[in-house]
């Protein structure tokens, strides 16, 4: 029995704080208080709790061994029996040589005591009739006494008699069933202890009561499984009251638990008190023998309290959509339905005699108890693993349905045992294979993000995070919202180091990672509550999934950054090489030029190269800076050519120009001014640059001798201008101005849209 495994979940799922008032929305403060309490008190309390737990475990084991020793002692006839269809006890097999010849015969007397099929019915809990129960008790007491002799005579229906010497069983002789059930009971007992010790709150104590009651039930069944004829003395009288009390107390505890968890309901105290009172009164009356039709009372009490629990859970979910309520209600319904089925089967088969009745009441009830016990074992681990819970609950539900169906077939259609078992197995397997996917989808939430969309989102967010690191929390919250469909998402300043589940699986706390490298800044955490619109619990699998997603996001961002840096380094290198190598060659070429035209041409090329390399090296240019440089550059050039410059530049918004915009505008301006100097022999050039209402207008006018622009041959220069303007999505036109000169107007609409 792993001691450390259950202790950890218990610290987390030890219940919500009891002090929470109805309607109060508990928040991070509560989690943090609790987690702080948890870590601080862990070391302080762990010591004595562990010791106490070990003590309890020892007590349990020693008690079990003592019990086994006690059960090994009574005398016993080594043979297996079964009830036949007519209600007689038939010998099936025996290792005793004396009994061998009598296999298949009906036993009518044992040690002088007459017996019937009821002798094989070990427990009186599932006997519907009071009179029958009294008979059962007397029969078992008599038979037990009869076997505890040196020699016992067995008389069969054909008149033959065998005298046998009963002997002690010994430990080895105890059936496997006994050990299995004892083991389960022990585990349940230990879990109850762990839960109670981990945090002795009222809620956990209630759980412990339920678990202990079911452990008691299992133990009684285990003890009864060891005997063939006649229960040892206290059992025949103790069995019914004890087991009824266990069942009713479990039901009452259940009612009490759902009153407090997942949230405290209005009037919780009264409802719980009522349930406990009903359970106690019924148990006491049954123990005193004052209750008629005890079985009906017991079953009725359980079913009514089960219905009440389910109603309370529905109510709780309507007040606050805690997914735990949904999960509990689901389990509650399965348990209750199987209980009702079992009750119906037992009640219907009460009229039958012999085999079928015994099978139904013994096997059916056993299956139900084991199911309930496993369910109880599961509850504390609910938020540990969605996978385990899902598979287990499916299997448990299906096997229980199979058993119930089997019993129902036997009871209602009087089918043979084998036939009904086969039939029910087939039916339930069919149901399992057919409904499994659907049920899994229901549990999982069918609208989980598909992997494809997930990746798309991941990379989109990675890019956005890179551009706006300050928006990381909001983007991550959006991703988590799509992933888990929670009802609430909130950001808090609190720091935590890793993703964790809080509030019994209703809440997931995700620390916001420092995705863009600056690890120093505190980013708080995201709290998401009520997964899948409050229909699903967060599990530790979800927490790990979130961690993995965050890790992927981190990698995507880092990757994007590396790519961007690589590109920029590559551009810089390219720019450097172009500038150094080609630039130097062009310079040499320019100095060696044969004619002024050639020299000017190469100079132009060199300037274009410089613009190109600068564009490569710098990703963007501020408009005001670019305009200042344009002006300084043009002033110098025009001054050298003794041309006057009229410069007017108007813009309201100091935009960032992209490389394309910057280099296109730079080259257009240079080209137009070159034309004015070289071809038009102008004395003055006027440049107007206006960027307003998202429209750029650039006019370059000269007073040179250019005329009739339509007739111009568009050589390299003007063609280049047209190309650049088209690249920016604009239009260019040349026209004559009075009295002389040419004006070129570049217009670009929707400037920012072209960026």
């Amino acid at each position, binding site marked *: 029995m792993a001691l450390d495994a259950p202790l950890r979940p218990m610290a987390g799922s030890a219940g919500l704080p009891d002090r929470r008032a109805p309607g109060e929305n508990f928040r991070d403060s509560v989690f943090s208080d609790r987690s702080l309490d948890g870590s601080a008190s862990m070391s302080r309390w762990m010591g004595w709790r562990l010791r106490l737990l070990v003590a309890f475990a020892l007590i349990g084991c020693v008690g079990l061994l003592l019990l086994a020793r006690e059960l090994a002692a009574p005398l016993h006839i080594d043979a297996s029996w079964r009830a036949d269809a007519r209600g007689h006890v038939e010998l099936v097999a025996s290792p005793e040589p004396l009994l061998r010849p009598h296999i298949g015969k009906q036993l009518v007397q044992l040690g002088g005591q007459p017996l019937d099929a009821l002798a094989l019915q070990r427990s009186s809990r599932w006997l519907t009739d009071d009179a029958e129960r009294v008979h059962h008790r007397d029969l078992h007491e008599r038979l037990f006494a009869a076997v505890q002799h040196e020699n016992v005579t067995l008389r069969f229906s054909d008149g033959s008699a065998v005298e046998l010497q009963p002997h002690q069983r010994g430990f080895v002789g105890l059936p496997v069933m006994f050990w299995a059930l004892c083991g389960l009971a022990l585990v349940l007992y230990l879990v109850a202890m762990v839960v109670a010790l981990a945090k002795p709150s009222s809620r956990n104590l209630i759980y412990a009561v339920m678990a202990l009651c079911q452990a008691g039930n299992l133990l009684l069944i285990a003890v009864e499984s060891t005997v063939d004829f006649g229960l040892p003395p206290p059992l025949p009288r103790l069995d019914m009251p004890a087991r009824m009390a266990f069942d009713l107390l479990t039901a009452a505890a259940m009612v009490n638990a759902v009153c407090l968890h997942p949230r405290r309901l209005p009037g919780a105290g009264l409802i719980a008190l009522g349930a406990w009172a009903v359970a106690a009164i019924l148990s006491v009356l049954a123990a005193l023998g004052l209750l008629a039709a005890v079985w009906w009372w017991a079953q009725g009490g359980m079913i009514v309290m089960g219905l009440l629990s389910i109603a309370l859970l529905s109510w709780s979910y309507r007040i606050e959509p805690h997914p735990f309520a949904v999960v509990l209600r689901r389990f509650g319904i399965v348990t209750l339905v199987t209980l009702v089925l079992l009750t119906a089967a037992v009640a219907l088969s009460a009229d039958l005699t012999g085999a079928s009745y015994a099978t139904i009441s013994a096997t059916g009830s056993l299956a139900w108890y084991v199911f309930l016990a496993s369910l109880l074992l599961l509850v504390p681990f609910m938020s540990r693993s969605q996978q385990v819970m899902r598979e287990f609950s499916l299997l448990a539900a299906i096997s229980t349905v199979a058993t119930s169906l089997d019993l129902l077939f036997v009871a209602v259609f009087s089918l043979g045992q084998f036939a009904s078992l086969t039939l029910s197995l087939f039916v339930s397997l069919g149901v399992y294979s057919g409904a499994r996917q659907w049920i899994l989808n229901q549990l999982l939430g069918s609208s989980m993000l598909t992997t494809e969309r997930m990746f798309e989102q991941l990379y989109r967010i990675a890019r956005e995070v890179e551009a706006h690191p300050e928006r990381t929390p909001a983007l991550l919250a959006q991703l988590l919202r799509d992933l888990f469909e929670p009802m609430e998402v909130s950001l808090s300043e609190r720091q935590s180091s890793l993703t964790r589940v809080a509030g019994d699986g209703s809440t997931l706390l995700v620390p916001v990672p420092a995705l863009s490298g600056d690890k120093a800044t505190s980013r708080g955490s995201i709290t998401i509550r009520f997964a899948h619109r409050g229909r699903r619990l967060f599990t530790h699998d979800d927490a790990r999934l979130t961690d993995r997603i965050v890790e992927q996001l981190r990698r995507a961002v880092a990757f994007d950054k590396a790519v961007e840096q690589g590109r920029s380094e590559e551009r810089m290198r390219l720019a450097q090489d172009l*500038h150094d190598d080609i630039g*130097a060659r062009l310079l040499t070429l320019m*100095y060696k030029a044969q004619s002024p035209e050639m020299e000017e041409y190469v100079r132009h090329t060199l300037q274009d190269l410089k613009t190109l390399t*600068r564009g490569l090296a710098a990703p*963007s240019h501020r408009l005001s800076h670019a305009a200042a440089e344009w*002006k300084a550059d043009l*002033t110098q050039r025009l001054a050298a050519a003794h041309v006057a410059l009229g410069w007017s530049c108007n813009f309201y918004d100091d935009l960032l120009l992209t490389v394309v915009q910057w280099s296109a505008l730079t080259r257009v301006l240079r080209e137009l001014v070159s034309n004015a100097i070289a071809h038009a022999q102008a004395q003055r050039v006027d440049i107007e640059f206006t960027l307003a209402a998202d429209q750029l207008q650039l006019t370059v006018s000269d007073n040179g001798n250019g005329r009739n622009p339509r007739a111009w041959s568009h050589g390299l220069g003007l063609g280049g201008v047209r190309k650049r303007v088209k690249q920016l999505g604009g239009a260019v036109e040349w026209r004559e101005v009075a009295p002389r000169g040419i004006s070129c107007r570049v217009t670009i609409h929707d400037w920012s849209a072209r960026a």
Partner: protein
Amino acid sequence: MPVKVLIVEDNPVARSFLCRVVRESFSDTIVITEAGDLETARRQIGPVSDAPPSNDPFKLILVDLELPDGNGMELLAELSRYPATKIVTTLYSDDDHLFPALQCGADGYLLKEDRFEVLVEELQKIVRGQPPLSPAIARRLLTHFRGGAPDSGPTPLGAGFLSSRPMALGRGAPLDHERLTPRESEVLTYLSKGFTIKEIANLMGIKWFTVNDHIKSIYKKLNVSSRAEAAVLASKQGLV
């Protein structure tokens, strides 16, 4: 007595072109020494000491930035006290390359791709004490003097004349020699916006040569403050 000029330039074609420019610019008798790399240049200059240099030093030194055995800036830094007019000749016109050169003590810069006449005019201006100052470099200067801190790496976007960079902590008010006068700041601001010297003179209501004096003063302050910074840095690192 002839004027001695040193031209450090690895490209022979460019070197002879620059020789022509120098000869065209000055009417004095000129003796030009050419150097293809830093090594030769250092040999030609001889030992540089704080004492007054040997008789007949170079009056004008043109240094290319990209040289086979190093960067021209190294030579400029070594010659910070050499009483010559030091001019950077380069193909790089961007402030990222030019500004460090000016910090190293260059008195001006010439862009090699400019036309012969332009170069002659520019060279004459620099020697007369009218160094060029492009808007980008004016922006860098503003940032440099406003920030007070050593200016390393490219200027961040938007840190131009709109810069509101806080003073570096642990550093008192900048000394007088590293602070610009309001007039100088004004001139720099206008320059950074692309105004010409004449326009600035008109705007400020002063003579154009006064604007020029401001620019010269700014150059000097940059040089001095850079040297002071280097000294502070060196003493911090235990080099001095």
